[in-house]
């Protein structure tokens, strides 16, 4: 309990008190606090436990790179694991819990692992847990899995909403510190559309916590002035709380706006987060630089933090990390921490500077030069530090600085590599051309004046320059220091994953010399901060261990996302029932009235069956079939793809698309067509009707409607552009209903206007344009999928429900029933018509028994490849009918076929059942199957093997047409 709230200062609102709880204990803080600053203000420095050794941990940073202070935030379906306390804006009623500890944060049994830490070195698990073999799955792995992981995710649905949006701009500025503000200002003043995004709750970047002056004002006041000007311009969009998390092709940036993460519960009309795709003509990355830790013993004890973080807590949040602090650095920037803290009345014990020649202004704080901190005393909080010369210094907190790493992540997201700068000791961003420049300290500009000028220049990008304000620069001098090897305690590189400095030479020794191999072997850089803090130190240690330069070792790949992104943000509103749009047919309302049970068919909702009096699907579908075959039924077939084809060459075009011929089709007639892919496999089928010389309407299967349309567009535009033809989908224009059964004609006659339906006016395969119900335009096709005397009637969609009701009324005296896709499927299987189960993307026309349709006289898509030996092989599996030898047996779809006496094996596999139905006409289960050389095997008895469901019955192979082989009913 050494950290505390300072009496004054900071950007917090001391008049507003907010209540929150951590691990069940109540605390208070102020508006403007983060959870981390509020906990520190309450003396809580212990905030988490590490991954492997369960070491006690406090904050290291005051920002997005925080690896240690991760908490579970909120409750129930809103619970979020691994939330960085340094980024959580405090709100009233906040609840948070520590993670990866049991039974409590203060006393964690898991810390026992640190006792065995001498064998838990990098990669130890690859070398053990192998014997005895069975122990891995039963004992070792369950233990490892329980021990691994950090927070616990909720298993309740997230109640909050998420949104997605696009933005367009001339210039996207990422980061609102000195460079970012100047870049935005320069572009905005020349009238460009500017988006300025910053991950912070408040714009201003480093100016919010540094005490530098600009143009004679505090940095804060100067930023406020610039922001006010930007806000006044209609071409500028300011986006606080927005993390630009990835740079993608086309200069498209992904960003997440945390619209309501700073309140307990979002406004019901607002999203929790909004995911942006920002399409930018230019972008300036002004993300600043990340301060590096130094690897020394105990560099993870709560109270050890980055010098800039300690400064930020004091200056921005009015919190001191301890009553007496020490500073350890290899560069000048950390001296600011000593000065600022001293100015706030915090006792600064000493600055330990690894450089002999350090000369920065320490404002009277004693400086020990040429020494290093080797170890930190204290376990759950700092009590003192040891120096390399053996000196012990008492203190309650330690600020460390190993130098600065420009935040180049986004500039490398598309595969670019940064390069090492020996004088700055930093990887600098690559040159990505004018569309994406990096400005300010992200580009290695370590002085404030440089940042302002660089931002102004890169924002203007050759346009009208803006005046660069005046400021006084702090010095920046640095000497290399990565790892204090004399340390006794563990010196951490990757805090969260507990990767230590010693792990890297070990990896190199074992052959994992490449930076990517060392990363994977030691897990350095694989924690939630993705190596933001530790990777440069790791690279330096690996470089030394392998005798290579920093550039030779290089960085690991910078990949999206800059900081982790919630699943919810990426998914936006497309979750649950809204995952995909629902597509309803024009007869949906009618079907609902009829009591339909709907089924998802692609995006469509189709009526599946129409149960009465508690019927199950089988009883309902069977009744529907019987009623249709004995009288009349009506079925919604609107989902079939309908394509209007017009033009002088419409017939010639269809001849290319289908393996059979359509240019010879008579006007007023329909024909069944079979479409192949260019590889000779069947693609789709359907009927096409000719309405005029230059006008056809074709139909596709429901499943393939969109694909067939794309295929037509390809065929016409890329293959046969010389053809004068147009085509457009009219699927949605028409409500289409099949009216089937011996009473279908009598039913329809009642609503057809002025036309007597008979075999002359409407013969089998007729396609007529008529009107119904006194003037409703309609198309009447005499087609049959059911095998009955049947029609398909199409009317403009807005009339669909009313026409369907009229058909039902007309058919009432014949006992008309609505039937759904289940009954439709039963009837097509009874008739041996192929559908989805057989048109499975691997069958040929011959396999389907449709070989005779394939024209030998013309070119069409798929003609040549269909003639390959493998597709002509008589032993290919082809469509047959199948029925149980014992009519009480059930055949199931997906069962495989074996010769009568064969034992089950892949070698003996003869085919499988593609579709089955309970046939109410035949009073038994019947099916279609694909069987090797099946056409020659009608009458053979085979095993129908369904080991998956523990069934084996005998089946007889037969003609696919199970019912009314002579097609008498069709013409009745």
């Amino acid at each position, binding site marked *: 309990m050494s950290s505390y709230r300072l009496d004054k200062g900071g950007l917090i609102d001391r008049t507003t008190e907010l209540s929150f709880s951590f691990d069940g204990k109540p605390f208070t803080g102020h508006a403007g606090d983060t959870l981390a600053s509020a906990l520190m203000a309450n003396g809580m420095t212990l905030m988490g436990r590490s991954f492997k050794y369960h070491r006690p941990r406090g904050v290291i940073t005051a920002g997005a790179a925080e690896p240690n202070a991760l908490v579970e935030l909120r409750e129930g379906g809103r619970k979020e694991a691994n939330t960085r306390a340094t980024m959580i804006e405090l709100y009233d009623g906040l609840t948070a819990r520590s993670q990866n500890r049991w039974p409590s944060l203060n006393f964690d049994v898991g810390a026992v692992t640190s006792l065995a830490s001498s064998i838990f070195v990098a990669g130890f698990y690859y070398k053990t847990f192998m014997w005895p073999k069975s122990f891995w799955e039963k004992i070792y792995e369950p233990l490892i899995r329980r021990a691994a992981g950090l927070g616990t995710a909720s298993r309740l649905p997230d109640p909050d*909403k998420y*949104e*997605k*949006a*696009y*933005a*367009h701009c001339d210039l996207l500025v990422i980061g609102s510190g000195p460079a970012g503000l100047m870049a935005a200002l320069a572009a905005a003043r020349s009238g460009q*559309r500017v988006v300025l995004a910053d991950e912070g709750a408040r714009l201003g970047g480093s100016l919010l916590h540094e005490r530098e002056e600009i143009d004679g004002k505090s940095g804060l006041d100067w930023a406020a002035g610039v922001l006010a000007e930007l806000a006044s311009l209609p071409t500028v969009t300011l986006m606080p709380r927005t993390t630009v998390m990835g740079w993608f092709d086309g200069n498209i940036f992904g960003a997440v706006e945390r619209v309501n993460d700073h309140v307990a519960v979002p*406004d019901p*009309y*607002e*999203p929790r987060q909004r995911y942006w*795709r920002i*399409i930018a003509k230019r972008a300036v990355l002004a993300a600043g630089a990340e301060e590096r830790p130094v690897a020394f013993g105990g560099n993870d004890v709560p109270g050890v933090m980055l010098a800039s973080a300690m400064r930020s807590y004091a200056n921005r949040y009015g919190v001191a990390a301890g009553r007496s602090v020490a500073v350890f650095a290899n560069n000048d920037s950390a001296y600011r921490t000593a000065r600022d803290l001293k100015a706030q009345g915090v006792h600064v014990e000493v600055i330990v500077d690894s450089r002999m020649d350090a000369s920065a202004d320490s404002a009277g704080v004693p400086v020990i030069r040429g020494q290093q901190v080797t170890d930190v005393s204290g376990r759950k909080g700092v009590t003192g530090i040891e120096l390399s010369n053996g000196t012990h210094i008492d203190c309650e907190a330690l600020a460390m600085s190993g130098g600065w790493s420009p935040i180049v992540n986004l500039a490398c997201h598309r595969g670019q590599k940064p390069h090492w700068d020996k004088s700055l000791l930093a990887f600098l961003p690559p040159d990505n051309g004018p569309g994406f420049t990096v400005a300010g300290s992200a580009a290695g500009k370590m002085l404030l004046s440089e940042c302002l000028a660089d931002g102004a220049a890169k924002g203007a990008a050759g346009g009208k320059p803006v005046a660069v304000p005046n400021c006084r620069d702090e010095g920046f001098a640095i000497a290399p220091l990565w790892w204090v090897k004399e340390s006794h305690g563990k010196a951490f590189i990757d805090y969260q994953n507990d990767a230590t400095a010693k792990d890297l030479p070990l990896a190199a020794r074992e052959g994992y010399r490449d930076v990517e191999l060392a990363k994977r072997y030691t897990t350095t850089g694989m924690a939630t901060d993705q190596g933001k803090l530790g990777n440069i130190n790791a690279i330096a240690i690996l470089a030394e261990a392998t005798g290579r330069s920093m550039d030779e070792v290089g960085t690991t790949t910078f990949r999206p996302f800059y900081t982790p992104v919630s699943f919810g943000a990426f998914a936006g*509103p*497309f979750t649950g029932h*809204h995952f*995909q*749009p*629902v*597509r*309803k*047919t*024009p007869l949906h309302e009618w079907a609902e009235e009829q009591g339909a049970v709907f089924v998802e068919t692609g*995006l*469509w909702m189709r009526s599946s069956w129409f149960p009465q009096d508690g019927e199950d699907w089988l009883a309902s579908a069977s009744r529907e079939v019987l009623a249709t075959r004995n009288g009349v039924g009506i079925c919604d077939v609107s989902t079939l793809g309908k394509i*209007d084809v*017009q*033009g*002088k060459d419409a017939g010639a075009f269809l001849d290319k698309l289908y393996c059979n011929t359509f240019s010879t089709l008579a006007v007023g007639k329909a024909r069944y067509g079979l479409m192949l892919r260019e590889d000779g496999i069947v693609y789709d089928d359907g009927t096409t009707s000719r309405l005029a010389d230059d006008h056809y309407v074709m139909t596709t299967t429901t499943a393939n409607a969109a694909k067939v349309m794309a295929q037509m567009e390809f065929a016409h535009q890329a293959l046969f552009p010389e*053809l*004068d033809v*147009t085509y*457009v989908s*009219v*699927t*949605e*224009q*028409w409500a289409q209903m099949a009216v089937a059964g011996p009473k279908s004609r009598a039913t329809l006659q009642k609503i057809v206007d002025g036309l007597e339906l008979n075999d002359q006016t409407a013969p089998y395969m007729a396609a007529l344009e008529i*009107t119904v*119900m*006194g*003037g*409703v*335009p309609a198309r009447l096709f005499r087609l049959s999928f059911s095998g009955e005397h049947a029609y398909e009637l199409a009317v*403009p*969609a*807005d*009339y669909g*429900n*009313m*026409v369907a009701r009229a058909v039902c009324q007309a058919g009432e005296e014949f006992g008309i029933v609505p039937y759904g896709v289940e009954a439709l499927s039963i009837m097509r299987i009874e008739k041996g018509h192929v559908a989805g189960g057989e048109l499975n993307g691997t069958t040929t026309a011959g396999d389907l028994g449709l070989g005779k349709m394939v024209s030998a006289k013309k070119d069409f898509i798929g003609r040549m490849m269909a003639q390959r030996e493998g597709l002509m092989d008589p032993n290919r599996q082809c469509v047959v009918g199948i029925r149980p030898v014992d009519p009480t047996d059930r055949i199931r779809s997906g069962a495989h076929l074996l010769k009568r006496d064969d034992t089950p094996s892949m070698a003996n596999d003869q085919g499988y059942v593609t579709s089955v139905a309970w046939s109410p006409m035949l009073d038994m289960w019947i099916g279609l199957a694909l069987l090797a050389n099946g056409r020659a095997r009608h009458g053979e008895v085979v095993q129908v093997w369904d080991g998956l469901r523990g069934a084996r019955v005998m089946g007889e192979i037969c003609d696919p047409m199970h019912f009314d082989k002579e097609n008498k009913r069709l013409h009745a």
Partner: protein
Amino acid sequence: MLNSPEKILPRVSPLRDIAIQGRFGASRTAPGVTFTVRHPLSIISVIARAGQGSATAAALKGYNAQWAGPDQYFVLAENLGEGALYRDLKAKLAGVASVTDQSHGRVVIRMSGPRARAVLAKGTPVDLHPDQFPVGKSALTQMAHVGVHLTRAADDAYDLSVFRGFSESFWEWMTEQAEEYGYQVI
């Protein structure tokens, strides 16, 4: 000449029971967005035949023809009888363009108001800045996994035309996006 069927059977919009009139969403201020279902409407697809692109464009002078792809248009009209516009255009464009009636196949929703553009930005990647997308311009795009024919009807008014079958789902998505600004349906 056919009878006019809507005298016997009124056309029924698929949004009849969905697009309920009223004020919804946030109510802190005046509604940011106003929705109207434009129904009934005549919508005719016109696609130029080979080499007839300019002839088609010329023939459509005087009609409310919206660009709908290369040498393709949607011609819209209100208050015409069933099939009237179709028959008119079919006669006028015989041999020049293919004419197809889509009046029932598409649903057109008018979205207007000061926040209309902000709502659209939640769906379409098309840049709607007036310099890029002036009044009268149309675009084919996708919003919420649904294909949309988008036309800027006025400074702050847009027509969104979608396949009929998706209209209900699309309506749900679009109105939810407008909730934060408050919206009204008229």
